């Protein structure tokens, strides 16, 4: 039981931490001046050299490996719905780490999406 809880914590915190680091990296890179393929490719080239991107990718890899471990221990009908908690944890991260203004409407939407994903994944 303890190892499943630790595995889920690593899965959720790893994916959320990785995505927050990548978001921070993207924001500091600045948005592309144009949404044309060449401009976007040049933007992505700059983005992948950003230090925060290099922090985010290993965290997401760690999260992926913990998902594989969890799937080898527990049924998918438990693991995937439980991992939907990352929507709520991610929103806390967005509010307190990225300083985004999360309105009541956005919180309500995130909670509904979290429950919805858990129900869809549970089948």
């Amino acid at each position, binding site marked *: 039981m303890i190892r499943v809880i630790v595995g889920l914590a690593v899965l959720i915190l790893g994916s959320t931490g990785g995505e927050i680091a990548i978001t921070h990296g993207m924001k500091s890179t600045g948005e592309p001046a144009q949404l044309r393929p060449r401009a976007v490719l040049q933007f992505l080239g700059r*983005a992948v050299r950003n230090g925060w991107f290099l922090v985010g990718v290993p965290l997401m890899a760690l999260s992926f490996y913990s998902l594989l471990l969890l799937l080898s221990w527990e049924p998918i009908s438990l693991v995937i719905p439980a991992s939907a908690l990352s929507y709520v944890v991610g929103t806390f991260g967005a509010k307190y780490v990225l300083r985004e203004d999360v309105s009541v409407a956005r919180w309500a939407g995130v909670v509904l999406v979290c429950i919805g994903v858990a129900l869809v994944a549970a089948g």
Partner: protein
Amino acid sequence: MASERRLRIKTLVMVLSMVVCANAGDLLLKRGMAQIGAVGLTAHGIAQAFRLTIASETIWLAIFFLLGFMASYMTVLSWADYSYVMPAGAFGYAVLTFLAVVFLHESVSPRRWVGVVLICVGVLLVGQTKPRTTEVASEVAA
């Protein structure tokens, strides 16, 4: 006001691109791996699967779409809030369920339909909020 509208439209386009690329990539990956068959968990089995994987056009097409997803995701995060993009991307679960019913004629349980409805309502709620609530670095000339 015009810039707000432009922001919403380009965010919507990128989120749709994320959803389409992620779903297409996952479906193609599933088809490609089904063509390869069950992978034996031995050194020989894994090496054999690796050779078949890199020779599969379907797998490469899947990788192309998944790279498209990553590019769309990174690009939209350069201007939009993470707390806006993340739940909006979950719309893919609803799309996948509809596709499974329409094209694969799968039966979907009532619990799953409730989940789809909750996701759609949740995404609509998030969609009503401003896509960007933080300062963004000034546009970088490409």
